[in-house]
């Protein structure tokens, strides 16, 4: 949707993912979109260097989120939310479905 503006599909994927889920790490985002993890990582680093995203270490993963201090955050969020309107209902639902409650290790599906 925003590829012409953001320069690549993975750039949009990264921003849309962290907008909807509030945070994400490279492998998680790559797995969700079936994208290349290195490419997603590059986008995350690029946006962190540009001050759009911030990151923190969680275990061995580096988790990224939108930088609340980014001066264009409100406008960026509005743009991403507008883009999200053009996603299919299924895509939006998939993005929003994120199991956060605990799940015992080894529990059968």
């Amino acid at each position, binding site marked *: 949707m925003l590829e012409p503006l953001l320069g690549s599909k993975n750039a949009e994927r990264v921003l849309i993912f962290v907008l909807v889920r509030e945070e994400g790490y490279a492998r998680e985002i790559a797995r969700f979109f079936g994208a290349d993890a290195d490419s997603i990582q590059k986008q995350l680093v690029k946006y962190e*260097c*540009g*001050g759009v995203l911030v990151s923190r270490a969680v275990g061995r993963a580096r988790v990224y989120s939108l930088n*609340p*201090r980014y*001066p264009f*955050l*409100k406008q960026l969020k509005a743009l991403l939310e507008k883009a999200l309107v053009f996603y299919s209902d299924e895509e939006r639902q998939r993005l929003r479905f994120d199991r956060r409650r605990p799940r015992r290790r080894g529990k059968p599906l």
Partner: protein
Amino acid sequence: MKSVKDMTNAELAASIESVLRKRGIDVVLSGGACVSIYSENRYVSMDLDLINHNFAKRREIREAMQEIGFREEGRHFTHQETDFFVEFPAGPLAVGEEPVKQIDEIKTDTGVLRLISATDCVKDRLTAYYHWNDAQSLEQAVLVAEAGKIDLDEVERWSEVEGKLEEFKRIRHRLAATRSG
């Protein structure tokens, strides 16, 4: 010319700014180093954040820094004669949603240091406090405010723009207290 190992954070930043300026690269000191300077080192930061607000190319910055003995290590630049390390965060120069309008200058032995004002330094620290509830950032804002050179009404106006007026009202008394003795 003072050697790098004898430079304070302000002198080192001023020296780097001068070298970059000669190459047409304009940077402004922000972040924790400004807290150190305004609080007269009651808070110590080893990190010099020189905001690359005109978006100079990384290659140009690297060449200038190498010329004065700095080595690039990931996002930072280090020098064997000092423990300070230097970063060039991308612009724009802003505090929260607003652009920084006033850039202060301090004369040092190594050149003129351009940095955000004490008032903007307090706002900069408060963005971290407001958004992440980071207590250390509030303490740093208090240290700068205690030096007595900030415009508290402006911090209040800005806090309201950021949608954080209620939070500001809760901490106003701490920022209003000036250092004694």
